[in-house]
């Protein structure tokens, strides 16, 4: 595992996250089964809306001012009650401070993350990035081994980082006093 990421470091490029194909469509599963028609044209924008696209770390976090929030597990008690809702509630305040996107990640698969977001009525306030194999968590030095708790060795620590054009400007790893929405807002 890499050393923990700190302010001034660049976000590691080349890592891939899975995203939902229909984040705002309630009641639909993250990646509905489809057959792509073998037509000759380039993939239309309309089709892209319905097909899940894996997203590279440089594309999600490399441009603009964004926040990446990580939770050890979707639906797990602390995150469920306190961490995610804060970012949904304060979405407009973050936008006002120049944040173009709030990403939420965990090592769950996208089906779980997407269902969690829909359950919490996230809408388009946050976007979910599934780091299923924990590769991104390892690359920034925030892997978490929860096998002692029966939750597997490939988890991520709880954190919130602010990234500006691919460079980290804030790292809040730990409890909500540093990784929660209010803590991050205060630092912007």
């Amino acid at each position, binding site marked *: 595992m890499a050393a923990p990421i700190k302010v001034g470091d660049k976000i590691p490029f080349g890592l891939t996250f899975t995203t939902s194909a229909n984040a705002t469509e309630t009641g639909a599963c993250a990646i509905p089964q489809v*057959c792509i*028609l073998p*037509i000759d044209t380039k993939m239309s924008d309309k089709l892209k809306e319905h*097909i899940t696209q894996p997203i590279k770390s440089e594309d999600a976090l490399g441009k603009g001012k964004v926040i990446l929030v990580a939770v050890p597990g979707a639906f797990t008690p602390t995150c469920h009650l306190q961490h995610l809702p804060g970012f949904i509630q304060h979405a407009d305040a973050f936008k006002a401070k120049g944040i173009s996107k709030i990403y939420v990640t965990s090592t769950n698969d996208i089906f779980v993350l997407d269902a969690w977001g829909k359950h919490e009525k996230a809408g388009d306030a946050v976007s979910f990035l599934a780091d299923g194999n924990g590769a991104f968590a390892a690359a920034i030095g925030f892997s978490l081994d929860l096998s002692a708790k029966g939750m597997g060795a490939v988890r991520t620590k709880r954190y919130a980082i602010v990234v500006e054009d691919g460079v980290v400007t804030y790292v809040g790893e730990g409890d909500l006093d540093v990784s929660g929405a209010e803590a991050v807002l205060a630092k912007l």
Partner: protein
Amino acid sequence: MLRFATRKFTTTTAVKSSTPTAWALGSIVERGDSDFKKTIAEAGTTPVLVDFYADWCGPCRMLAPILKKVVSIESPKTFLIKVNTDEAVETASEFGVSALPTVGIFKSGKLVDQFVGLRDEKFVKEFIERNL
């Protein structure tokens, strides 16, 4: 001799495209490039569910019985037109169908909503309800 115009009300049986006006609520019909637009026009303000599918597409085969069940309920609010995209190539292309299944809802001749990919019964029911 008196002549009465008679109307035949079909219910839930699938009807092939040889019967041009059998589009009563709850019915399932097959249409192609030659008669799709005509049927949509004839439906007027009645909402019409359209299933763009292909025989080789697994998710389409899984969606078909779900659509059939939801459309053929006791008090049907719509009817279903099935369009085979391998045969009705022009119609599929006109409505930008690039993945299957694509299910659209038409009202007064216009496509007002659609979804792409397999869904469950609950989703399909809500999809129809919010577009009635």
